[in-house]
């Protein structure tokens, strides 16, 4: 697929000396949904700000749609949309007017049908004449999304789009992002909710202290770093792991009353091994009363990665 955003050696050091980004390299391909995960202060918003013109990079290059953003920023910015993390909008403006303003600001002719389509897709049509200050927090966030979509961007940044919103809006937003993907829009989102990335992203990048730790296909990352964990409750405690079980990656917990398996690779191999383990336990005449088995989630992988590199 064609690369529409190429970030190379991007570094941002703020006036106080804080390094927010350090030699970040990142390529985004057309039509993908890319989730940027990282703890607070990792540099996610700075990275988005550097691409969108809010932050002046200290060094490095950013190319969007083939245009170098330090020189040829106009045509590139016209194709990029941003939904910021903060609910920043003119609170005294009516919804329709605010969204129309955004379209004009990006150089597009007024298009009432398009604005209506966007407002309807975000359940804002009934609120079109309301002043934004009269809307709920969730509705205000929808307005920000509508404003970002008003100029029909090909690349959309969503900075923590579901922070502080209710479950219903979060699901609505996921559906909207799905529709945008179907329409060919490339989406880059930052989130604290790993579930969100797991649900929607094609690729995931993990950033910590201004450095990209890993970028990979979500499925490949889970296959490579995923694990199966099984907790087997034993009928009688064990003092040590019997030699017949030495082939399995096991440990004893809870004073020998629990046998803990951690293995596999995220492809289902772990489940097979757990099945073989239970057979081995039966053959060895080791009685057990329960099994709790689960595959590691993207969240587990994220936490492992971030803690491992800390």
């Amino acid at each position, binding site marked *: 697929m064609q690369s529409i955003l190429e970030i190379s050696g991007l570094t941002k050091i703020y006036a106080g000396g804080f390094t927010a980004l350090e030699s970040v390299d990142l390529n985004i391909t057309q039509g993908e949904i890319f989730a940027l995960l990282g703890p607070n202060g990792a540099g996610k918003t700075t990275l988005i700000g550097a691409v969108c013109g*809010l932050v002046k990079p200290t060094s490095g290059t950013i190319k969007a749609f083939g245009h170098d953003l330090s020189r040829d920023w*106009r045509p590139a910015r*016209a194709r*990029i949309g941003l939904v910021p993390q903060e609910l*920043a*909008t003119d609170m005294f403006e009516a919804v329709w007017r605010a969204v129309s*303003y955004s379209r004009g*600001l990006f*150089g*597009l002719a007024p298009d009432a049908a398009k604005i209506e389509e966007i407002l309807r897709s975000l359940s804002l049509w009934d609120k079109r004449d309301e002043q934004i200050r009269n809307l709920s927090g969730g509705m205000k966030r929808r307005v920000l999304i509508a404003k970002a979509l008003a100029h029909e961007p090909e690349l959309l940044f969503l900075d923590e789009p579901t922070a502080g919103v209710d479950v219903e809006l979060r699901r609505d937003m996921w559906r909207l992002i799905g529709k945008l993907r179907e329409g060919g829009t490339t989406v880059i989102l930052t989130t604290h909710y790993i579930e969100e990335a797991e649900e929607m992203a094609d690729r995931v990048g993990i950033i910590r202290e201004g450095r990209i730790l890993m970028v990979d296909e979500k499925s490949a990352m889970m296959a490579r770093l995923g694990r199966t964990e099984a907790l087997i409750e034993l009928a009688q405690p064990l003092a040590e792991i019997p030699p017949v079980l030495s082939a399995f990656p096991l440990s004893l917990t809870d004073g020998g009353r629990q046998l803990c398996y951690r293995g596999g690779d995220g492809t289902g191999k772990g489940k097979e091994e757990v099945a073989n383990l239970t057979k081995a336990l039966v053959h060895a005449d080791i009685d057990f009363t329960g099994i709790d088995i689960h595959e590691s989630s993207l969240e587990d992988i994220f936490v492992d990665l971030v803690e491992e590199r800390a």
Partner: protein
Amino acid sequence: MGFNFRGAWSIYTREIMRALRTVFQSILAPVLTTSLYFIVFGAAIGSRMEAVDGVSYGAFIVPGLLLLTLLSESTSNASFGIYMPRFTGTIYELLSAPVGVAETLVGFVGAAATKSLILATIILTTATVFVDYEIAHPVLAIGYIMLVAAAFSLFGFILGIWADSFERLGIIPQLFLVPLTFLGGTFYSIDMLPEPWGTIAMFNPIVYLVNGLRWTFYGSSDVNIWVSFGLTVGFLAICVGVITFIFRTGWRLRS
């Protein structure tokens, strides 16, 4: 992609709409204040004052009062226009859009200057109710009013970017512009001042602006009229230069 006309127009119309939303503060309040000056100094006291340079006192103060409103309103409108997006965080949209210094100036400064020109029209019309005056060089007067409105809207735009609090936003207009305008010959001719105040007054740049506008009204001035025009144009050019520098470096706009 060259100049983003629609982007500039969007900013311009939004700023004008904002003024219409706050019509009392933007239009009626300054017109009322200036009308009070005309009533007190023009109609009430002015009728008992001697003519200045052959112009009745009530008519003499019209250009100065008009300039007082032009300076303060142009400065505050433009400074507020750019400060509010910075304060509320909506500046993100402007910075991420394909608009540069030219579109931003046409939008914000153009709207602030337009509001000032609307005010000037209303004030000059209102003044006819209280005092008799004629404009000797109407075309030059309109041109000069536009020049001053543009220059001080640019100045206000710089203030709005410089200010990091509402207090700072008001410091320059209230502590410098208004006093300098009052002392800049709005209510008197510099010739009327005793020495050394007459000489000291010549260091006040507003003296040249007031006299420039007064010349377009009555054809008489305390200072060389070309110096007045030159200073106004020079001030405008400096402001454009400063704003261009601000956008190139991202000072106070981009982190």
